[in-house]
């Protein structure tokens, strides 16, 4: 039942993350920067890990929460997560 991360459309994942983060933190989607570090706009590590859980449900994939610490912004995460050479 699990999908492969590299089958996910990066644009879809990016827009889902932006919507999720803006919803949780009350940020304006129009001015949200996907290249800012998560902690710059207040997404702390606990909230990032919760997001990983919701993302698993949404996309039917396995998300290692540590990936958010290794690639701590939306652009970098999406690129690494959906990369062809990803595990």
């Amino acid at each position, binding site marked *: 039942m699990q999908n492969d991360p590299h089958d996910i459309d990066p644009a879809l994942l990016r827009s889902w993350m932006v919507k999720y983060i803006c919803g949780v*933190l*009350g*940020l304006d989607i129009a001015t949200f920067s996907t290249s800012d570090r998560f902690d710059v*706009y*207040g997404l*702390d*590590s*606990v909230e990032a*890990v*919760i997001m*990983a*859980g919701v993302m*698993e449900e949404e996309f039917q994939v*396995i*998300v290692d*929460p*540590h990936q958010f*610490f290794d690639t701590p912004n939306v652009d970098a995460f999406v690129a690494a997560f959906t990369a062809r050479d990803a595990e």
Partner: protein
Amino acid sequence: MDGQFDSIVHVVSRHASRKSAHDAIIFLARGETETERVSYGALEARIARHAGRLARFAGQAVVIATPPGGDFASVFLGALRAGAVAVPVPLPDTEKNRSRFASVLGDARPAAVVTAQDWVARVAAVAGSATILTPGDLDGPASALPAVDPAQPAFVQYTSGSTRTPRGIVVTHGNLMANQRMIRTAFGTGPGIVGVNWLPHFHDMGLIGTVLHPLYLGGTAVLMPPSAFIQKPARWLRAIERYRADTAGGPCFGFELCTRTISDEQARSLDLSSLKVAFCGAEPIRAQALDAFAERFAPARFSPSAFLPCYGLAEATLIVSAAEPGRGIRRKRLPALGSGAARDHVSCGRPVEGGALALRHSNGGAGEICVGGPHLAAGHWDGTRRTAVPFADIFAESGTIYLPTGDIGALVDGELYVVDRLGDFLILYGAKIHAADVEATARDEAAEIRAACAFAADDGAREQLVVLCEVDRRALAAAAALAPRLARRIAEAHGVVPQVHFAAHGALPRTSSGKIQRAAGRTKFLSGELGLHKVETTAANPVSHAE
């Protein structure tokens, strides 16, 4: 041998000889599927082999930076069996943990660091001259059980102190065994214990309460990483159901996270009826949070009488006081420390059997909680001399050595209520004001305020009461409008017009257990590091908010 001290490694070894096939540790790497199951027989064999390899580090610090699971338990106990001083630390996986890791290594001065294969390169970058080993390297000839002196350091807990000045607390073999007995008596646990927990394995509550306590009793520790729980809190509750756990718990925040993320419908599909002890400690206990959990999980047959609030700290190994098992939460409205209205507090029960607890400067009311007894740790680790240096502020009274904890408590009918942290009186205009009271007034006045930090600051002309309020980022822009109301209310309640500032939730410095650090908050504020700036000022109540 008769009269020989029975250390934790002796106890585990005895369980292995009596019930070799019994499950000691079950690990769920992602909180769902079982990834590891270790019997007492297998655990004992691994401990003995690790101890054989670690014997050359006897008397020296051995840092253990491994992910949670069976390897951590066997390496930790192997180090103890080898006579080394184990120093469990989090993996250097985030920026914060990397700087923490480096500063702990600098203070502990370990002879060796044990880490998982995947982490060797990253650990080597900061490990200095310490030998780096993986659990796979520790497969030596089995070592015999040693004679252990109860005064000998067993491990060092780096759970207090800032990153800049880490302080390792030395827990002796005697401390550990005394506190294990205390937990057993206080929680009413026994050899049939099945604990299902997610707490960090390098932190006092996770290590002593959830990894070692079931092993001490000969029961089963079912463990998952904290991230697996936080990612999907339902995993914890499903594992409780699956393994028919009788003991599980954590800080209040864990129960809150379950209530926040698990729907009524999901709750109805769970069965939590096996849970007899739902311990709650390590941070202030909010009765409303536990009430909400009990209400949500009543259809899952969770019994609120299972709640067992407790109080403890690493300096006392772990546990200091605990509510009676099977009673649930008892709350009491206690007068505020200084000005301000009475508030409800949750009882943390009676001091554990064999422990001593006293209140200092209490004048019959609340006072600083001071702890003594066989679980009082030996002191701070001196990495250079490889020994414990007694805590600087211990004092003797009636033949007992006590350590002041910095927490303020009240004893009502023999039960402890923790009401505040110390260091936080303000003397303004000749009046004594308790920071906790001002903070409570701020939070009560506006639901938007998630946390507050009050202190006195000298603006060059006079001492002022400063109140830093955390609000959700989305509420930040509108928060300035709250300031006049807050200032008015605080002035009404405490007689001083404050300066009110706003910052995004999470901006204030906290301890590792989530308590706001007032002194650090004050320092950051005064040095301008919080990034606050004034947007609006009136003579009576200047206010500001963060960008």
